[in-house]
């Protein structure tokens, strides 16, 4: 992936986490994320328009309630953060995807976005995703996070 594109993805990713969830991200080498034994949740959505493609975000399971608490500005021990944890991750992906498309393609093209979906991901699949060329590795508040952006055409 060329440096200019990586810089742009990094900026969008870090801005969304910082502005929405008050969490601070840093682009790191993929090797920094390997060999972790955490369970991860994957959020995925597709876009279709002048270009088609897919955006994936993976975060450790335990990070999801923290995102929800930060987005809502409520105590992390509040019961509702567990109910909203999945929704919080989907929303982070949704906003990252929308911001990325404008940053990459400008404000003229119209894209149709799918509703984000989440699922658990096996550690071997997580490692495979990390190795892909379209993946970037981040550390966000000490949590390992993968952002995968693929544009088909």
């Amino acid at each position, binding site marked *: 992936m060329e440096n200019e594109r990586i810089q742009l993805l990094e900026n969008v990713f870090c801005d969304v986490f910082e*502005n929405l969830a008050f969490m601070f991200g840093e682009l790191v080498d993929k090797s920094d994320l390997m060999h972790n034994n955490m369970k991860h949740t994957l959020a995925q959505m597709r876009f279709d328009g002048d270009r088609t493609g897919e955006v994936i975000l993976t975060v450790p399971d335990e990070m999801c309630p923290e995102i929800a608490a930060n987005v809502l500005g409520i105590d992390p021990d509040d019961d509702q953060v567990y109910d*909203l944890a999945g*929704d919080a991750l989907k*929303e982070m992906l949704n906003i990252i995807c929308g*911001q990325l*498309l*404008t940053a990459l393609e400008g404000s*003229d093209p*119209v894209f149709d976005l799918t*509703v984000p979906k989440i699922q658990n991901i096996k550690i071997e699949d997580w490692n495979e995703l990390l190795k892909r060329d379209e993946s970037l590795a981040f550390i966000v508040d000490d949590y390992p996070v993968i952002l995968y952006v693929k544009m088909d055409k």
Partner: protein
Amino acid sequence: MAYNILIVDDSAIVRAVIKKALTISGVDVGELFNAADGQQALEIVANEWVDLVFADINMPVMGGIEMVRRMSEDGLLTTIPVIVVSTEGSATRIEELKAQGVSDYLRKPFTPEQIREVVDKVMGENHGK
């Protein structure tokens, strides 16, 4: 004047964020209704007094655009302003939405000040209707 507001989004956290932003912004909210999709929203606007609707575009069952289209077919419901809240940043899409009857557009993420501004603008414009 307190506004009865309907928030339509399949994401519970987005509904909570809009509610919180409205509270912080100082918008005078009367009754607050929630719907998870356009179909549920149509049932609420048919049975309750709603002054203003915030709606997502992409939702299961019925999306925000189809909801606005159905509202525009009803002489009474067509007067209720709908503000679309979405992540999309396409200027072309925003113009399309307005042509389809959407009153205004709020891009996520947004601040309480921005939500106040759009409510003031839309409800000010709507006063003459």
